[in-house]
């Protein structure tokens, strides 16, 4: 029966194997870049940090997205939601004392955080409130996606397509087509440098994000629950899990990650254009997760893989730009290299190398026997 082959699930991806390949590719790429583009600054450690800096947002996003993917979902609304969150932050920062809904929500958060005596324009207060507000907006968007996926059982791709298409235009509509600047000084610290500290602030965020996710995975059952739901929903339910809430939870976690990422992005630029901000970041995030060796169908996962995947993508973009590739051409070149990486990771190739290795060891053991 021809269908037998198709019905069989793919064997579990050998996450470690794929991860190794990604790391090797990354190292090779970086070393090549150092050799050939050394004069353009690749030999300096500063470049390494710059890479981290520029794609701190992508790293945080990829971590969130891996969590969603473990449970068999996917989220392509990242870009749209980012635009929404950026819009929220900017509107709040410009209009903190005003009467708009966002400003009122901000006031509530501020009062909760700092007590009722706090004044709106004290330094940093405002920015911290904006972060929390951003995360809340992200969670809301995540919950929206989560409800569509888990309660209404809409396919994740379709469900998240809604905010993917609508997010940017909602943001743009709320801003009335303007591209406002933020005039709070402290705000730009977050996306650039805190005065006196040489390491860019987003790196701390990326680091913190990775550490938090790591701790969550270590001290909760998130991974086990999400994997279990991603692989077999029926069995998970019979083992007492509630697949709905597990899926919901993954989307909300994703929302928080998007919130942080969006905040970093808007703070770096101090102004936003909802239509272009973090353009195509959802695809980069999915790619990062895939490069990290995570199965898009759910199940096995590697958080470290996602982080390195995100880093690889950024390294690629930066290398290409440094190499005087025009910015419109970058995605095309990127595609070529990504195809290479994905092919090297493919099961077929893996099997081939497996056999190759097997033959090598067989031969060597044969010779050993002869010698003995």
């Amino acid at each position, binding site marked *: 029966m021809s269908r037998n082959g198709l019905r069989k699930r793919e064997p579990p991806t050998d996450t470690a194997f794929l991860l190794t390949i990604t790391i090797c590719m990354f190292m090779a790429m970086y070393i090549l870049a150092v050799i050939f583009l050394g004069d353009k600054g690749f030999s300096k450690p500063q470049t390494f940090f710059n890479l981290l800096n520029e794609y701190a947002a992508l790293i945080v996003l990829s971590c969130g997205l891996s969590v969603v993917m473990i449970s068999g979902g996917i989220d392509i609304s990242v870009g749209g939601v980012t635009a929404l969150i950026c819009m929220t932050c900017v509107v709040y920062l410009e209009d903190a004392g005003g009467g708009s809904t966002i400003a009122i929500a901000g006031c509530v958060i501020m009062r909760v955080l700092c007590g009722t005596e706090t004044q709106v324009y004290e330094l940093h207060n405002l920015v911290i409130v904006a972060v929390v507000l951003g995360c809340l907006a992200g969670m809301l968007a995540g919950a929206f996606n989560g409800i569509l996926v888990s309660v209404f059982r809409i396919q994740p791709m379709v469900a998240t397509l809604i905010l993917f298409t609508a997010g940017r235009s909602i943001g743009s509509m709320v801003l009335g087509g303007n591209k406002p600047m933020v005039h709070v000084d402290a705000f730009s610290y977050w996306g650039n440098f805190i005065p006196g500290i040489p390491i860019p602030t987003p790196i701390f965020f990326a680091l913190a994000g990775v550490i938090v996710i790591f701790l969550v995975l270590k001290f909760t059952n998130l991974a*086990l629950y999400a994997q279990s739901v991603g692989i077999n929903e029926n069995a998970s339910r019979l*083992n007492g899990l509630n697949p709905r809430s597990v899926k919901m939870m993954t989307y909300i976690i994703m929302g928080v990650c998007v919130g942080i990422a969006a905040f970093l992005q808007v703070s770096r630029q101090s102004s936003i254009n909802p239509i272009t901000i973090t353009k195509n970041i959802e695809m980069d995030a999915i790619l990062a997760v895939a490069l990290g060796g995570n199965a898009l169908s759910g199940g096995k996962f590697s958080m470290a893989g996602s982080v390195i995947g995100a880093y690889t993508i950024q390294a690629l973009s930066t290398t290409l730009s440094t190499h005087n590739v025009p910015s419109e051409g970058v995605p095309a070149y990127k595609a070529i290299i990504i195809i290479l990486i994905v092919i090297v990771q493919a099961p077929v190739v893996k099997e081939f190398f497996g056999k190759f290795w097997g033959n090598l060891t067989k031969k060597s053991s044969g010779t050993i026997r002869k010698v003995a």
Partner: protein
Amino acid sequence: MLDNTVLSMRGICKSFPGVNALKNVDFTLRCGEVHALMGENGAGKSTLIKVLTGVYAKDAGQVYIKGDEKALTIKSPQEAQNLGISTVYQEITLCPNLSVAENMFIGRDKDTIVNWRRMNTRAREILDTLDIPATPAQQLANCSIAIQQMVAIARAVDMDCKALILDEPTSSLDENEVAKLFTLMRDLKTRGVGIIFVTHFLDQVYEVSDRITVLRGGELVGEFLARDLPRVELVSKMMGKELDDLESISGGKASIDAKLDQIPVLEAYGLTSNSGVKPFDFTIKRGEVNGFTGLLGSGRSECVRAIYGADRVTGGQVKMNGRNVKIDEPFAAMKHGVGYLPEDRKRDGIIAELSVRENIIIALQVMRGFFRPFTAAQAKAFADEYIKLLAIKTASVDTPIASLSGGNQQKAILARWLLTHPEYLILDEPTRGIDIGTKIEIQKLVLELASEGMSITFISSEIEEMLRVCSRLVVMRDLRVVGELSGEDLTQTNIMRTIAGNEARNGRYS
């Protein structure tokens, strides 16, 4: 190669990481014979079949097909099919989201354009010939498992096959359906088709088989003519030891009687669910083993699913140890100390890509809570304990459960529930599709657990097995409880009579 040989396999070897699944196995299938392939779990039956059908690549050995002098390498199921080797697997491998007709013809049509009318007409003809109660346009998922199985067979039969492999085809069929299948097999036999028949039911082997090949631990024990091999000898060849174990399990009948007056562990009154089962009453006492019996589709599984909260409960009342409880979802049942081993292992039981360890600890882990994961060492200790206790054959605790044999998967699921130390354990077809040795182990375990005070509901399609294990049987017909038998009344004849009711048994219940 002799003239009447359909296919022969010589010196087949196949190993997986940590396991030698096949060691130098020979197998010969002749024209017009039903050849039973026998062996315990992990004996290598499935592996041999998968090598033959191109699912696995063999490590060594030759395969010859009739009409070809050269040894062949079969690389894919498609290729095997083109060579005239058709397979019906133990677990249904059709597409539940397609219609019956589509399932019968998918992947076979060379034409790009589908002629729906012709396809449906042809499908109807085949279904009618084989007397399968399904319509071509029906979605496969809406058919019962038995009918899905028969559609799979119909598909295989309709293809021009020289060799038909039936891997546990009868494990989900009731007697009428089995009889029908056997008629079909005999019919195919007279047309010269060679049939490889894999089953755990000894009766069925002797009913249709001409020849028996026995495997044990990946090695060939031998090929025998069915009429020359007494049943006891076959069993001892499969198990590799003399068999008095079968006899030593005496019924659990003695185990309860003394405790009749105590408060039941679980009482259900007028319980019903959205699966369509009619309201039923049910009680079970501490240390009791009882069971639901009835034909396939009579509502056995639906009853226990309602008790466990696996289906949406729509009415009735449940008491545990005399107190009212509300069990509306599996988690609530688990909290009240109820465990449930589901009927369909592949769909509801295993979490395929997760390791044996994770599969074993998951239920206990869920009960323990989201914020309190077991450490790796704890989880491993639990898994190791139960792997040893139940003698689960696995390369390591980190092996994905999907790569274990069926019986060992079942043991792992059993381990999952034993680990939660339930007060009341529901086992729905725990012995389906697993070998006789493991069956006996499970039966023994059930009685042992009951003697330690656990209450167990045991469901099986094999009445002998139920009689051996249960002290009380609830009999079902058409989603309704029609009787309850215990003590002296608990005999095979009585069960049959109750199932059949007043009318003579002529219809099929499914």
